[in-house]
């Protein structure tokens, strides 16, 4: 067993994901990030919602929690407020985080609570057979858009920046070293962080759109990947369908929520109580 395997719960293997699914690559990148930072598994909790990405906590050898659809961030808020000293990681798919869980996402960002979110964006509801999600590219065929998707996508990273998240980054499952690095940086960031990992669902999305092979679909993602610097030089037309990667927002000005509560509100309340008692 090498360093990063310490964070893997082999007793629950093999993984349930399709051959070549990007979820496994994200699992490994997170384990490598834990290992690079030399974290104690007892100080980590991995929480996920429902979906293929939701099965990920089962495979981590840390504290793990599998919750309801779209609400992983709410459980994480309870954990982080109770144990502000622990690393709280939330793994969510695009449907889980942006459809049913959209509300909780913007509030977690607004509060700047120190939860580290990994948003696995494969543009589809994979586990249930391949229905359209808020991040499915336009014109794609899915189980619930048999004539082509007419709904435009969110831009999740930009949405997060608008909701005042203090660390937003995007990487893909092709760029494994950069993915691990950006996850590491997000763990070291104090406030709310979102790392969007562009992944491939070739079986339930790619197959309906002429990309049933994982190598072919990951190449399709690679063609659309551009660095932040390249993206900034592009015209609006060129920018369509492109995924700018890298750290898109990093802001250390804002207070982290649990710190604000425990280090400011609680002492202030105790002071006020003391003064009241003296009267």
């Amino acid at each position, binding site marked *: 067993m090498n360093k990063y395997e310490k964070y893997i719960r082999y007793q629950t293997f093999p993984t349930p994901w399709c051959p070549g699914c990007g979820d496994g690559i994200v699992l490994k*990148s997170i384990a490598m990030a834990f290992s690079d930072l030399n974290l104690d598994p007892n100080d980590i909790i991995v929480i996920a919602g429902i979906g293929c990405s939701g099965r990920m906590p089962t495979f981590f050898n840390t504290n793990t929690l599998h919750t309801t659809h779209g609400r992983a961030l709410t459980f994480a808020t309870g954990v982080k407020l109770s144990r502000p000293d622990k690393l709280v990681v939330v793994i969510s798919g695009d449907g889980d985080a942006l459809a049913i869980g959209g509300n909780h996402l913007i509030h977690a960002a607004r509060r700047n609570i120190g939860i580290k979110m990994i948003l696995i964006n494969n543009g589809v509801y994979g586990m249930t057979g391949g229905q359209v999600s808020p991040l499915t590219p336009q014109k794609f065929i899915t189980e619930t858009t048999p004539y082509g998707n007419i709904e435009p996508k969110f831009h999740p990273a930009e949405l997060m920046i608008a909701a005042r998240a203090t660390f937003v980054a995007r990487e893909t499952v092709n760029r494994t070293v950069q993915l691990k690095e950006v996850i590491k940086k997000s763990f070291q960031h104090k406030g709310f962080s979102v790392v969007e990992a562009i992944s491939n669902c070739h079986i339930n999305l790619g197959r309906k759109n002429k990309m049933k092979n994982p190598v072919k679909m990951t190449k399709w993602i690679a063609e659309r990947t551009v660095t932040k610097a390249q993206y900034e030089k592009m015209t609006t037309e060129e920018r369509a369908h492109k995924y700018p990667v890298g750290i898109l927002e990093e802001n250390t000005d804002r207070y982290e929520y649990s710190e604000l509560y425990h280090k400011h509100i609680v002492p202030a309340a105790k002071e006020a109580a003391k003064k009241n008692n003296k009267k």
Partner: protein
Amino acid sequence: MDREEKQINEAALEIRKKKQPSKKKNIIELVSHYCKGCGLCVDSCPTGTLLLEDNINSKFGISVMIAAPEYCIGCKMCERRCPDFAIFINHEKDKEEQ
């Protein structure tokens, strides 16, 4: 093996033609009962060391084989991209450094 999987193999063989065997020996470890034969490692390898093969013992009828171990340069791209923890490069060595 379908047409696209054959194409992955052909691409790997093409890459290997332009490479030389590696100067250092690197140990490739396959955990065959986890390998799902997705081909991502074959595609990631910069020297065409790995290939897909039909395999009746594998759950998916296809798995990875180490076609040319002497070409492995120890870059670990395959290990990083394998979603199933089915391939490790110089695994023992990591244990020692721990």
